[in-house]
């Protein structure tokens, strides 16, 4: 046991000596959360709109004021003719235009329906989609209140409701993703590099010729990164809850335990990568291409898994990050307990067990 601790101390010294890497490893998670939280936004904020009101009655005025008082839109100006709209879009003055048909209020009273045209600048598709759904949401709301007041059934289209993230706060989407990404980076990539380094320098052979057992070498290598990853989890959680008001609706203990499990999965992946690569460059390349890219693109972090082609959906099942994201979102946003995530937890456990067995076998063969 004593020699094992000596080994862990040596690993920590390596980490501390390389203080540049250390700063990156601790600073990056915080920087990323703040970047994603502040800079990369998915919600609407004071979008400039123009209005062409062909009717100018009490209903259209009320809808207009509802739109403008929502806080999502700022009025750029009223149009008088349809041609002006295009000019405003081309000039970049507005991102959305709302057009009311003539005799709007009369139509509603007579036919129980009326038409509004919503035009958005779809050169920014995400923004356009958001603007559209916000606008129609506000109008639907108004229509609903109107029909209650006057006891007449108005035609109401589909109702859109954002569950768990009612305001569609993007930081809620990004925090679990960043957590998966950072843990993958530190646990898998750094472990694979540190073992590959000993291989490259020839010190691994000396270690293997010593009384240390392969398992002790692996555990000793992994221990400091386990600690570092847990510290990062704490940092990310603190920043995202205090600065961005992200909730932790479920049990904190369960959350930490699931993070630890995911770290274990990532660490065993790192060990496997180092077992099959002979230099730091190879280990880094495999980690980057084989782990980071799929984690970012295919785990559901940025693009929903449901929207992917079938083949990629199948592929996403083997990504630990995908299951981790489901677990984290369940605990933090929905506040569900273990009963709802035992399946995902089981999958991660199984992956870890398989990866560890394979990599320890590989490690021994290499001797």
């Amino acid at each position, binding site marked *: 046991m004593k020699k094992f601790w000596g*080994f862990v101390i040596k690993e920590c010294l390596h980490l501390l*000596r390389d203080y540049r890497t250390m700063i990156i490893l601790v600073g990056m998670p915080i920087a990323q959360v703040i970047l994603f939280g502040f800079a990369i936004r998915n919600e609407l904020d004071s979008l400039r709109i123009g209005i062409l009101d062909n009717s100018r009655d009490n209903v259209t005025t009320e809808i207009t004021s509802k739109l403008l008082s929502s806080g999502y839109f700022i009025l750029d100006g009223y149009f008088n003719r349809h041609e002006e709209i295009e000019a405003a879009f081309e000039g970049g003055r507005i991102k959305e235009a709302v057009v009311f048909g003539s005799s709007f209020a009369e139509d509603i009273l007579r036919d129980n329906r009326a038409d509004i045209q919503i035009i958005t600048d779809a050169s920014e598709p995400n923004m356009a989609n958001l603007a559209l759904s916000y606008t129609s949401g506000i109008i639907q709301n108004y229509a609903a209140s109107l029909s209650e007041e006057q006891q007449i059934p108005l035609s109401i289209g589909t109702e859109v409701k954002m569950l768990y993230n009612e305001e569609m706060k993007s930081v809620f989407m990004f925090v679990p993703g960043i957590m998966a990404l950072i843990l993958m980076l530190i646990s898998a990539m750094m472990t694979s590099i540190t073992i590959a380094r000993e291989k490259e320098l*020839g*010190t691994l052979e000396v270690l293997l*010729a010593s009384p*240390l057992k392969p398992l002790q070498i692996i555990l000793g290598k992994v221990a400091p990164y386990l600690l570092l990853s847990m510290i990062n989890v704490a940092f990310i959680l603190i920043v995202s809850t205090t600065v961005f008001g992200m909730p932790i609706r479920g049990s904190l203990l369960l959350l930490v335990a699931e993070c630890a499990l995911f770290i274990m999965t990532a660490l065993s992946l790192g060990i496997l990568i180092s077992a099959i690569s002979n230099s730091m460059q190879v280990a880094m390349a495999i980690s980057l291409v084989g782990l980071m890219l799929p984690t970012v693109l295919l785990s559901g972090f940025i693009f929903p898994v449901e929207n992917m082609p079938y083949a990629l959906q199948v592929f996403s099942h083997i990504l630990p990050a995908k299951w981790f994201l489901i677990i984290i979102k369940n605990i933090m946003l929905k506040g569900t307990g273990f009963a709802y995530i035992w399946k995902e937890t089981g999958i991660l456990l199984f992956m870890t067990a398989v990866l560890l067995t394979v990599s320890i076998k590989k490690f021994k063969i290499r001797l």
Partner: protein
Amino acid sequence: MNDLIINTENLTKKFGNFTACDNISFNVKKGEIFGFLGANGAGKTTAIRMLCGLSQPTSGHATIAGYDIYKDTEKIKLNIGYMSQKFSLYEDLTVKENIEFYGGIYRLPSKEIRERSKKLIGELGLESVQNKLIGSLPLGWKQKLAFSVAVFHTQKVVFLDEPTGGVDPVTRRQFWELIYKAADEGISVFVTTHYMDEAEYCGRISMMVDGRIAAMGTPKELKGSFNVGSMYDVFLHLARGTK
């Protein structure tokens, strides 16, 4: 038999169809410097890896310090020192940390590590740099330190795999002085090299050619039997014979 630190009989290692070591038999006595010579790819490293417990022999027997290399690898590992082809200290740790680390993984008590590392640093004249990172030291010092660390925990045997590759002649000379000192203290030294001038320093030599031991004896005996003036000529003679 007791002073035979290394004793091998028909040790063989095959990789598929390729036989890296073919029926190697030799022994090394206590305090002897045994040179293991041969061209690149002659099977030197394979042999040293088997003796250190880094790889399993295909067939044959061997004992190190009385321990069987199939059954007692753990005990063997405690009793041997090993210095690999590549420089085996950690560049980003200090002189002291390196010594303490290697002492620690060989289960030496902390008190003993402290005393012995102090003595060692004194002997090597490294007091002024003991808290400096290894990476900042000149190669010659590093090499000497690496050897001292390899014998730090053992009084039995040390395996050196081409320890002087890429080192200048003066440093090589100093390095061999350390080897002699260790041998005088009763440590057996098993050294592989392809520098023929170093071969002259060894007590006894075995010449490896294509995985077999082509000749074995003291440098004097070998030169006599081939009737040549230097080990270099002995080597050429043997190497040419295989072509």
